[in-house]
């Protein structure tokens, strides 16, 4: 393949009805609602934005410490702190209206199916919300969240109920803390999910050995960052070869090469989480690195990379395109 000028690379990818200007978006909970990062760069550069998990009513979250460092990663146990869906709609989202072509994806969490449904219903009235990301995989709250993501039947029930209430497309975010991710993915697809994002965090723990107690106040937390990238790539690879709906890759993306790896595994786009903490400019940097890699590798359309290393997924993609 002969190198290309970087400007000749077409970075666009199609996600459901949305044509994203590039395949890179921040991951939920790692970008708040965008206001802080807007001080650093133009959010209009992003392919899309996924905002912090939103629940029906305000949540205070867990006690601190809520974060801990691990080799090539971190643990978090935020516990879904957010002001509740009404204030999210009134106070947190409006500033995003000023960006051209910046699809806003709202991550939804809760403790019972009815909560999720109600949040989704309220978001349904907002023209700013391009899609819902259903967080059935949060490991950091006592009830709700992750158990929906590790039980096939509960996941399917949740997805079906939410789909009925939703006016926007529903992306279901899967938990990696399962024995068979392909099966969970299929259950969600069958229940009506429009797309999947994976992975949420792995459950982990660090102990403060000098104080002889878990470092996080919550005990356990969610492991994210480069450490989990190989697990995420494997799951994306497996799921993309199993379902016909689009898959968004999440987990440890810190460079353009990482993003390309997820695309080749079968993802149509990637989310960037922890890397935003290490480097506030991570997202625009990764977009440029994807562009540069494509140019150097003679790839004129980034969409051509999708599932390039995953023949079974590529076959499914082609079938779908027919």
């Amino acid at each position, binding site marked *: 393949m002969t190198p290309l000028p970087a400007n000749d690379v077409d970075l666009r990818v199609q996600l459901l009805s949305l044509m994203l200007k590039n395949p890179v978006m921040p991951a939920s909970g*790692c970008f708040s609602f965008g206001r*802080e990062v807007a001080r650093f760069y133009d959010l209009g550069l992003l392919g899309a934005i996924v905002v912090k998990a939103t629940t029906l009513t305000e949540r205070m979250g867990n006690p601190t410490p809520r974060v801990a460092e691990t080799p090539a*990663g971190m643990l978090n146990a935020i516990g879904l702190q957010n002001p509740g869906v009404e204030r999210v709609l009134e106070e947190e989202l409006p500033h995003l209206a000023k960006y051209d072509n910046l699809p806003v994806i709202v991550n939804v969490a809760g403790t019972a199916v009815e909560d999720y449904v109600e949040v989704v219903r309220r978001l349904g009235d907002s023209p700013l919300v391009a899609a819902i990301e259903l967080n059935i995989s949060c490991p950091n709250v006592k009830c709700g969240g992750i158990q929906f993501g590790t039980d096939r039947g509960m996941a399917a029930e949740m997805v079906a109920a939410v789909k009925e209430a939703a006016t926007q497309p529903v992306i279901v975010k899967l938990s990696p803390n399962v024995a068979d991710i392909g099966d969970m993915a299929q259950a969600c697809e069958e229940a009506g999910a429009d797309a999947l994002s994976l992975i949420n965090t792995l459950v982990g723990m660090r102990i403060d050995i000098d104080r002889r107690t878990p470092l996080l106040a919550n005990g356990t937390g969610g492991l994210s960052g480069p450490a989990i990238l190989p697990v995420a790539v494997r799951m994306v690879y497996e799921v993309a070869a199993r379902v016909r709906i689009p898959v968004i890759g999440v987990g440890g993306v810190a460079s353009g090469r990482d993003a390309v790896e997820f695309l080749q595994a079968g993802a149509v786009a990637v989310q960037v989480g922890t890397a935003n903490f290490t480097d*506030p400019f991570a997202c625009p940097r990764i977009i440029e690195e994807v562009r540069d890699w494509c140019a150097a590798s003679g790839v004129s359309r980034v969409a051509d990379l999708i599932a390039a290393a995953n023949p079974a997924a590529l076959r499914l993609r082609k079938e779908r395109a027919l």
Partner: protein
Amino acid sequence: MVASARILRHTEIARGIFDLRFFSPDAARTATPGQFVHIRVSDSFDFVLRRPLSVCRVDPSEGSVTVVYRVQGAGTRRLATMAAGAQLDVLGPLGQGFPLHAGDVRAVLVGGGVGVPPLVELAARLAAQGTAVTSVVGFQTRAQAILQDELALYGDVRTTTDDGSLGLRGLVTGVLTQGFVDGANRYYACGPTPMLQAVQRTMAGLQVPGYLSLEERMGCGFGICVGCVHPIERDGRVQNLKTCKDGPVFPAGEVLFT
């Protein structure tokens, strides 16, 4: 806001405690006392999180910022290996520093351990606006005592140590008596949480208002991870505010401890 800053000086000023000065004209111009910088100690994935360190001094004419830190764990140990001349990845200044009140006649500054550094720039600014400064600083032991000479440029300094090896034996609160705080309009405190809690209680009893600089573990340092919160009673309700963005300095009367 994010800069690759050259290290101008890096010296050990007490056992395991380093003074690090770097070149960052923007930060030197804009930083206020009580704000912090968020430093990436290596580009290795061993450290995906940055380390928050308080601004100790700024020198706008030299374009320099100084932090003083103790080697605590792997990250600060790594930082301590970086030599003058090397480039440092610095984000900041970040957060809300100590508010100055122009009419204050006298302020009491209370610092514990590596909570002392931000008080130095604060003392300088208070003195510059004509507020008399008295500092009370506490350390575990003599070998870890730092920055008393710097603080002494701006007013009286009382020192306490846990083991009595320097100054008064005991805690900083032992110094904070009615007579000592007489005439003080305000206090400013930074140090470990138990100290802040004790100082808050003592000064409330003495009816002196003040500010506390809180220390919480941080993910991002600029408000996007919601990792660093502390319960703050404000507008009649308890809120988990971000110490990196809404703090680290809060009015003492608003800060809740559990």
